[in-house]
């Protein structure tokens, strides 16, 4: 450890000095090879990327809080806190070993429990750096679910779910592909660069099962059976959270290169282009459908574009990324309407963003991959045939089925034992005080009669003489 640190310092100094003067070669230089510098650079880059992915937890917390009601905001914050905390400790203890342990079989890894002997390390990365990057991904998969189950789930029950997903369900899925399992061994290996399916579809399908087992929130459907809008309490939170997620995604996608090399810039660009085209197309779709450019739906569209390009961000062209993001932007709006209609109440659109667009993005690799490489084959639209496409569909179906069954069993067991849903009274009052003993916004901010702006924004924006008609 110390050795590595000294090298890192030496490497940085040397690089800096070489830039100033090539004659200032130190005696120390002889002990540092170009490989050493590259190794340190890889570790630094992936560690920073891991921290960016962890920042996505803040983005999820803000999006989910913004798109749900104020009376349960402390509860959704708590779920986000525990998705990361419980998830990280569960992944440390067993999840990482199941995902990457070399002693297992094609379906289930083993070895390196509690990050002990035999713990996995990738390429030039150290074990801690590899682990931190992977634990950030595990926590991302877990936290996708909290929004879909918002405003009606017992906290205790959610806590159990969160541990099981991070300890078992997610690691098994990861083992199948990134852990070298059966999806990685198909004749044309399944390719999911940064986790459209591994992370997002897994979270999205678990969210779908959770929302189905819970049932819709009270008041979501009118007496006529039609879905009703239950507006979230802060559009600024939702949009800020979306931007935080966007920034985090620059760790998620380029970081998945797992090395500081020439590919990371291109991956960052495809990621950006898909995000913006997703937002634009979602806005245009909802605008055409309802006459208003809905803000929350547009934010969902940006996330849909990001989820969509996550699998193919290294394999597709810039134009390909724009098309993938655009399709995801349309798809997410259609999916939100679809789930509303079939009585699956997903307050934040997590199933549509992560489940539907995750599956789409993974399949899109089989269409949009520009050319053959060591990790993927050319896609159908570029004349590469259907080999990659078939493998992508196999992966999407297999992971979808596995998560649907295991998460379904998990939620069924929780429902039959500790119970999944709060009482009707608690749900109507909001979960904050019954579940956690504290309102999300204290009494000095939330009086009994909630004030709307008085002479502040709305009044100030009006022209005082507007009403002075004779």
């Amino acid at each position, binding site marked *: 450890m110390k050795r590595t640190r000294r090298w890192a310092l030496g490497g940085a100094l040397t690089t800096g000095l070489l830039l100033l003067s090539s004659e200032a070669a130190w005696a120390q230089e002889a002990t540092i090879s170009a490989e050493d510098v590259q190794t340190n650079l890889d570790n630094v880059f992936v560690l920073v990327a891991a921290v960016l992915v962890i920042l996505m937890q803040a983005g999820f917390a803000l999006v989910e809080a913004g798109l749900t009601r104020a009376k349960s905001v402390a509860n959704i914050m708590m779920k986000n806190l525990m998705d990361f905390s419980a998830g990280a400790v569960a992944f440390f203890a067993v999840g990482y070993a199941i995902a990457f342990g070399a002693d297992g079989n094609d379906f289930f890894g083993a070895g390196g429990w509690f990050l002990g002997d035999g713990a996995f390390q990738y390429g030039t990365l150290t074990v801690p750096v590899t682990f931190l990057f992977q634990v950030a991904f595990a926590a991302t998969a877990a936290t996708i679910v909290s929004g879909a189950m918002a405003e009606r789930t017992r906290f205790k029950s959610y806590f159990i779910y969160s541990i099981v997903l991070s300890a078992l369900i997610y690691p098994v899925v990861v083992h199948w592909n990134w852990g070298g399992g059966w999806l990685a061994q198909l004749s044309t290996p399944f390719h999911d660069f940064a986790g459209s399916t591994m992370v997002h579809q897994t979270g999205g399908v678990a969210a779908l099962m959770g929302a189905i087992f819970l049932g819709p929130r009270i008041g979501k459907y009118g007496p006529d059976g039609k879905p009703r809008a239950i507006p979230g309490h802060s559009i600024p939170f939702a949009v800020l959270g979306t931007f935080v997620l966007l920034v985090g995604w620059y760790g998620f996608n380029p970081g998945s290169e797992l090395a500081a090399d020439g590919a990371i810039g291109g991956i960052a660009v495809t990621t950006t282009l898909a995000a913006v085209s997703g937002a634009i197309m979602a806005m245009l779709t909802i605008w055409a459908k309802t006459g208003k450019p*809905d803000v929350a739906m547009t934010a969902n569209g940006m996330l849909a574009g990001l989820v969509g390009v996550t699998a193919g961000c290294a394999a597709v062209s810039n134009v390909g990324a724009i098309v993938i993001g655009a399709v995801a932007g349309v798809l997410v709006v259609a999916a939100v309407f679809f789930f509303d209609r079939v009585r699956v109440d997903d307050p934040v659109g997590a199933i549509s963003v992560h489940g539907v667009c995750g599956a789409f993005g993974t399949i899109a690799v089989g269409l949009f991959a520009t050319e053959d490489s060591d990790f993927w084959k050319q896609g159908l639209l570029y004349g590469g045939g259907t080999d990659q496409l078939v493998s992508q569909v196999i992966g999407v179906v297999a992971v979808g089925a596995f998560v649907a069954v295991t998460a379904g069993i998990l939620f069924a067991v929780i429902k039959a034992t500790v119970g999944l849903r709060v009482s009707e009274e608690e749900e109507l009052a909001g979960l904050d005080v019954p579940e956690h003993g504290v309102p999300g916004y204290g009494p000095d901010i939330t009086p009994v009669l909630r004030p709307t702006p008085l002479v502040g924004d709305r009044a100030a924006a009006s022209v005082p003489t507007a009403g002075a008609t004779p």
Partner: protein
Amino acid sequence: MIKLVTAIIKPHMLESVKDGLKSTGVQGLTVTEVKGFGRQGGHTETYRGAEYTVDLIPKLKVEVVCSIDDAERVMDVIRKTAHTGKIGDGKVWIVDVERLMRVRTGEMGEEAI
């Protein structure tokens, strides 16, 4: 005789009403945030593509205590300054005040206005 003029107005018309009343010599008024509906029965907004009805629309209640001589004029000023011509402009009404006292001095009736 003392009168209480009460008006329900659109929140963004407050500045206009307040300025109008001040310029006609009204010495004080009280504003309360209220919610309610009238003949239009609320309105609909859209969120994530689904419509929802807002039954109770935020309004402001403006109350002015004045002498009987001023009451009609106050009502007229409110009518002019709160008017947009669109649905939801509100109501104004006048009721009798039985007794009126200024807390600081104990003055009663018109003296207390």
